[in-house]
């Protein structure tokens, strides 16, 4: 089950940003989980006084997609590799052919798909200068401060977005509706519940104006057979615990969508809890994963 960013994590992100300020940094230093990140690698100085003539950014598999911004005067090369799920991923981006004098700074723009999970994502950068190179590739081991590193990698801190709603200590997060094929008689909605209260609760029912009827379901693969059943007693939410409605398992089944559920659309969902009462959340409609079994452009974990 997922842990959410605490205040401590946000504090850590700020520390990370200031520590790395002297080196090659990602700006902004934080990103909201579940949103694509648009930012830049900032080169603040050359290599020991020598002008920068190129950078090579090495993307870890946690980065689900990457697109460099066109940069006049520079040549950009995107290197591909086979990623998790056997699909193509961007392994590195190389900027070359330009020049950043030692006493100037420059930004190298990127759009990145980041993991849905909160936490830092370290991205090693090799800076090539007229004389020599600097390898910004050190990643702190758990419990180690970034300050202690001489050549820290660039880092962006993924921060869990605020909950969609909070009611009676229950947080509703990570909600989305799977875009439905044309004329599909049903669609699935997903969300994660965190019960921060001391009392166990239960998601009893769900309703929506976007469909004729909503039911709580579970699906599972059983020896190669797909089985879908109603959660007739709702979904238990232990005190202090989480319950997920996520691909491959529990879902809200929306029967008879009132209008086509297309990416970019919104669906209002009213959740009824046994103790906490009812709360209405608005969920985005997202395309079913079409990039190879995981992630997709919105990092919702794909369908497995």
């Amino acid at each position: 089950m997922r842990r959410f960013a605490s205040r401590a994590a946000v504090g850590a992100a700020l520390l990370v940003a200031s520590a790395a300020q002297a080196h090659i940094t990602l700006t902004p230093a934080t990103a909201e989980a579940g949103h694509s990140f648009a930012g830049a690698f900032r080169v603040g100085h050359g290599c020991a006084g020598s002008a920068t003539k190129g950078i090579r950014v090495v993307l870890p598999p946690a980065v689900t997609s990457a697109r460099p911004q066109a940069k006049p005067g520079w040549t950009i090369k995107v290197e591909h590799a086979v990623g998790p799920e056997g699909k193509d991923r961007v392994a590195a981006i190389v900027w070359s052919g330009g020049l950043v004098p030692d006493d100037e700074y420059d930004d190298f723009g990127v759009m990145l798909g980041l993991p849905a999970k909160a936490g830092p994502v370290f991205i090693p950068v090799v800076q090539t200068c007229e004389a020599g190179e600097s390898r910004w590739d050190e990643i702190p081991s758990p419990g180690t401060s970034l300050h202690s590193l001489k050549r820290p990698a660039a880092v962006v801190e993924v921060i869990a977005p605020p909950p969609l709603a909070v009611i009676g200590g229950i947080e509703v997060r990570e909600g989305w509706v799977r875009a439905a094929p044309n004329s599909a008689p049903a669609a699935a909605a997903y969300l994660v519940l965190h019960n921060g209260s001391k009392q166990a609760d239960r998601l009893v029912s769900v309703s929506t104006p976007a469909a004729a009827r909503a039911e709580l379901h579970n699906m599972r693969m059983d020896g190669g057979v797909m089985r879908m059943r109603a959660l007739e007693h709702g979904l238990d939410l232990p005190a202090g615990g989480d319950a997920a409605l996520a691909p491959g398992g529990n879902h809200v089944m929306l029967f008879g969508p009132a209008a086509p559920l297309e990416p970019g659309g919104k669906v209002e969902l009213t959740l009824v809890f046994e103790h906490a009462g009812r709360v209405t959340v608005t969920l985005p409609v997202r395309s079913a994963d079409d990039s190879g079994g995981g992630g997709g452009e919105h990092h919702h974990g794909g369908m497995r």
Partner: protein
Amino acid sequence: MNRRQLIAGIALFGAALAPVRALAAAAIGGPFRLVDQFGHPVSERDLLGRPSAIFFGYTLCPEVCPTTLVSFGRWLKKLGPAANRLNVVFVSIDPGRDTPRQMRDYLTSFDQRIRGFTGSPAEVDRMAKAYRVYYRKVPLPGGSYAMDHSAAVYLMDAAGRFVEPIGYGETDDMPMASLRRLMGR
């Protein structure tokens, strides 16, 4: 899921009839008389002469079926021109709701090379039995129903003989290896 479990899964329905080993070799596949999404009659003979990838599902299925159909779009693209020599067929095991018209509208959301077969419940049942596909109607509390069903893709050679299955949820490299082997036969 490994191959043995998968074949065991396929065999759920026919387990009482034949040993698993024999199933893998010969007993999957057979004649059918259905209609495609345009209402044209189709039979096993329409698939002969080219390899086929066949899977069974229903349009109310919220995750497994659209995922498989989306995966097929990706796999066909990766196969390149060879994909045009492959029959890809989505067979409804819910013909009560999945009329040819419904199949046609639904399949417009996916790769246009994917064909949709449906038909009378008796003919769908005959094809499902021939392919050792398990399916069962399960009532839901609000008055609708779900269909339990085997989720594997069946790869058949140009002579209509079963070659191997692709299990649901495999990462792309395994299905692509299977499909390339199939196309190279």
